[in-house]
């Protein structure tokens, strides 16, 4: 929870009735993953000197942006609504 709180995604409340709540609406999976795991990098090429000449590097860039773009579009609210549907027997 600490990385999520530091990233401003959850708020903590102290006390007997305390706990955590989402700090805002519209939080995306990309925000959560980036806060908990760091930025998504499928390959450790960040400090490689061959990047410009490396043709495979473009594949990894493509993979990376696909993952970041997709997870930026999925919100926690949306996932929660699927959960409600499934609990109501509406299927997932």
């Amino acid at each position, binding site marked *: 929870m600490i990385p999520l709180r530091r990233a401003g995604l959850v708020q903590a409340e102290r006390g007997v009735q305390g706990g955590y709540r989402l700090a805002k609406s519209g939080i995306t999976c990309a925000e959560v993953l980036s806060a908990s795991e760091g930025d998504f990098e*499928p*390959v450790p090429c960040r400090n490689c000197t061959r990047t410009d000449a490396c043709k*495979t590097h*473009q*594949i*990894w860039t*493509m993979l990376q942006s*696909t993952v970041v773009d997709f*997870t930026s579009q999925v919100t926690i609210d949306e996932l929660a609504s699927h959960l409600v549907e499934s609990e109501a027997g509406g299927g*997932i």
Partner: protein
Amino acid sequence: MKISTRGRYGLRLLVDIAEHSNEGPIALTVVAKRQDLSEKYLQQVALLLTRGGFLTSVKGSGGGYLLERSPASMMIYDVLDLLEGNICFEEPVQGEENAIERVIRLHVYQKLDQEVKKVFEGLTLADVTKAAWFTYVI
């Protein structure tokens, strides 16, 4: 998901051989030097790529590796799938799966895998060896 050294080096090996395909069989020593990779490691990866139907080995002096077929018929997704075991974010369900895990698996990881597959669809080794394929993909 992280791509392992096997996936990264294997793809570099294949791209290197594709780019020098007019030179006949390519010895791994040459690729190792050109790509600054360990030859011993390349041997393991080359064996895997040969079994997977992407490379063919030519024995004897002047021997080495050739592409098994045209680079235009080799899908990058298939190469990675072979080298990495699979390139999926979705993992098989182990034990009991609760409702939240199930929603995340189906609505995040499964859909993300479909997205990755869609983006890679049609991308061949021939595209990658062309310098400007990236603009073509977008």
